[in-house]
């Protein structure tokens, strides 16, 4: 077990290192830098810009800049934002919290709907309820996230039931605890719905396919032949056997927690990583971009690691294979 986990951890470590090198390379090699826009300010002399570039080491070779960045990562700063004139880590952390609040809620809701719906659909494979679910998920799959979010904003504006974006009312600080929760829930509803609707079809289809595969497996037919009731058959035998692909998908859901909602956040003015990273990309605030990618990679690696651990626990074949190596 330990060796298996250590190997997965080593994979995750090299993945993070590899992604950091590639992100650093691509972002720094992209044309233009943060101070370029100041070139269009006729009041700022080229010498001032050169001095600013030098101050932020933009005139240094790539290797030195990478080493300097790694050093700042080791000191918990994850680089320095040119725009905010401050270390990147605290800037990202505060926004990552907002993103996680949104995506965790959406992930929980999506799985809570997808699991029973997928199982129910698999049980009725080829029948009317299954067809309705298949068509509905197909329709949801072809609607772009952007259109979903925009549609929901139109709803907000026309009905006035929900705020047109944002995370909290201006009065938030003066509200009672209960009203704060209510206010947050009102602001979260539309982005969560948009995220759930965009992830639900994939989850439902995976659950359905995994459960349907197992339902026709010989061991279940044999169990059915022994007179085990259908409910027990489904939840005690079929679901654990179908869990393997779903655990991998769950790991992927964890990995997408920081990066899966960026577009929705921008459209819905949610103060998470989305608008922050978009602005940083456009402004060439490169260490913010690299830090954002690093955060997402850590989540991806953590999601994969968690999935591996769960698989090890759920699937006896992996345990056997790992022990025999």
């Amino acid at each position: 077990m330990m060796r298996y986990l250590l190997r997965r951890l080593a994979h995750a470590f090299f993945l993070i290192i590899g992604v950091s090198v590639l992100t650093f390379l691509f972002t720094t090699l992209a044309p233009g830098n943060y101070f370029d826009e100041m070139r269009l300010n006729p009041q700022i002399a080229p010498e001032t810009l050169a001095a600013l570039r030098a101050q932020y080491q933009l005139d240094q070779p790539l290797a030195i800049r990478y080493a300097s960045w790694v050093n700042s990562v080791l000191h918990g700063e994850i680089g320095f934002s040119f725009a905010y004139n401050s270390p990147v880590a605290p800037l990202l952390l505060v926004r990552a919290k907002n993103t996680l609040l949104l995506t965790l809620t959406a992930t929980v809701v999506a799985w809570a709907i997808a699991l029973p719906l997928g199982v129910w659909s698999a049980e009725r494979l080829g029948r009317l309820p299954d067809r309705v679910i298949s068509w509905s998920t197909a329709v949801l799959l072809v609607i772009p996230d952007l259109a979903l979010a925009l549609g929901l904003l139109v709803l907000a504006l026309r009905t006035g039931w929900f705020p047109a974006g944002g995370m909290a009312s201006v009065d938030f600080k003066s509200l009672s605890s209960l009203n704060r929760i209510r206010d947050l829930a009102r602001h979260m509803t539309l982005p969560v719905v948009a995220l759930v609707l965009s992830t639900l079809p994939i989850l439902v289809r995976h659950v359905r396919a995994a459960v349907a595969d197992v339902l026709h497996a010989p061991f279940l037919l044999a169990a059915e032949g022994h007179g085990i009731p259908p409910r027990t058959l489904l939840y005690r035998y079929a679901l654990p056997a179908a869990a393997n692909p779903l655990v991998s998908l769950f790991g992927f859901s964890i990995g997408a927690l920081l990066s899966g909602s960026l577009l929705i956040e921008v459209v819905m003015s949610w103060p998470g990583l989305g608008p922050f990273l978009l602005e940083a990309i456009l402004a060439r605030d490169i260490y913010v971009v690299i830090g954002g990618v690093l955060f997402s990679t850590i989540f991806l690696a953590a999601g994969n690691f968690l999935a591996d651990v769960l698989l090890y626990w759920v699937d006896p074949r992996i345990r056997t294979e790992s022990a025999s190596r």
Partner: protein
Amino acid sequence: MRKRPGTVAHCRILFRLFIIFFALICQPTFTKAQQNNPKEESRLLSGEIGRSGGRLVVSLRGEPKTLNPVIAADARSREIIGVMQADLVHINRANQLTEPALAQSWKISPDGLAYTLVLRNGLKFSDGRPMDTDDVLFSFRVYLDENTHAPQRDLLIVGGKPIAVRKIDAQTVVFQMAKPYGAGERLFDGMAILPRHLLEKPFQEGKLGQIGSLSSAADQWAGLGPFRLKEYVAGQRLVLERNPYYWKLDSEGNHLPYLDELVFLFVPNADAQVLKFQSGETDMISQLGAENFSVLSRQQNGFTVTDAGPGLEYNFLFFNLNDLGEKASPDFERKQKWFRDVKFRQAVSSVADREAIVRLVYQGRGAAIWGLVTPGNKRWGDANLAHPERSLERARALLKEAGFSWTTGPNGESTLQDSGGKPVEFSILTSSTNADRAKMAALLQDDLKQLGMRVQVVPLEFRSLLDRVTQAKEYDACLMGIASYDADPNSDINVWLSSGGTHLWNPSQPHPATAWEAEIDGLIEEQMSARTFEQRKKLYDRAQEILAEYQPMIFLASPDILAGAKNSLGNFHPAVLEPYVLWNVERLYLKSGRENATR
């Protein structure tokens, strides 16, 4: 309940989610002391008397980065700093003239080299600490410090030397220049006076850049502006509260500002700002695009949208006139022969349909321009500058004179060719993130097609474009826009001078590449130190005429400044100078004060 606007209008918005005292300068006198109101000491402002109280909510397109004027480089930070800080002399955004601010009066020495400023009595920072000339001395020491890299430093180098500042007494300070400075006291606009008691230590320790982050505790930051820091929520909002020590009064002697609170909501893009305004979550909106303005003006439900007229932004086309030496390919050298020919540039200018650009790109909310002084600039436009009508015939005649000819292709299309028989083909770079300029480029492409030119429009991400144009210099032509910060010519000095970094067609020249650029350099440098407005205007007009004749920049259009506010907001008068709607923030008030305050 508020009437809900139409779905179509929403969809249109939503679907684009992604995507002077100078007058005194003109007078033959060197003394410009203000004739102060006997009640002086706190400045009295004329205008509509408002009522105190309430909270104004406005949206900012994105998040400001700092409260520190020394390192602020982005427009949003400057907008916030503008309402939290004050300068010695201020440019009134409505009449574009200077007016006394922290300095109650100033005098200019007969030789034009020394400015003596007298501060008001009893000035206090927003933390209650008194302000005096030591704060002024400290502020300018910071701005001029080479290690601070303050963007303001370049403005404070006059005649190649930094301005020297010396204290006379607790209220009087003298600014000594190496050379007379034509723009005079405009120099002091935007130079916030910094709180020495808070910043001297970090400055001495070389840590000034790390001070003034938005997350600073409210008592760690102070200014002399109408509002002070109350609360910052990262990514969401910045709440400012009335500065109880603010020095301005209205004409009835009431303390300003009228508003108790000013809230900035951070909204990631223009269309989201419109949604917030439509839904009533914000009270005011500025920098509206023409389409959003059109949508809102059809609704006007409890709010009014205002067209303040053309601003100071000028959009223009320019050709690559850089001397690339050995780096230039034979193909580019051939193209550059056309670009260097003034008749070629005049032909392009002649065929550009500026009126169509204003009509189609700005929906009529803009002005056609033939120079970098837009109609929004009240004092510096050259009335004698020709505004020729679009003429295909004149353009053809100019090209013919320059040795170009036309051939007819197999499909009957006419192709322009140079004297060597090569077709005239080139590309125009434009910013992919600016939809207006992309449309402008497409219209220009169509205009040039009528002359037989084959033009490709290449949209590039803005910083990549800047890199191509200012660093690599690998481009044929480029469509760009610059927004002047001030109406005075000196704000565009680096566009005019051949040594300037924003002399975009051939920047940072060690020596002027052409005789006409040398002449412009001479005129601009002379006007910089000329003593009267008439002298400066005469020189500046001549420079504008040379630019219009040689067309290194083919000026196209200037958009109007479009803004909107709830009808309950008083004293809302958008200006064409930044900050467009908050320039008179101390006088903005809510007509139904309390109701709005508790919304």
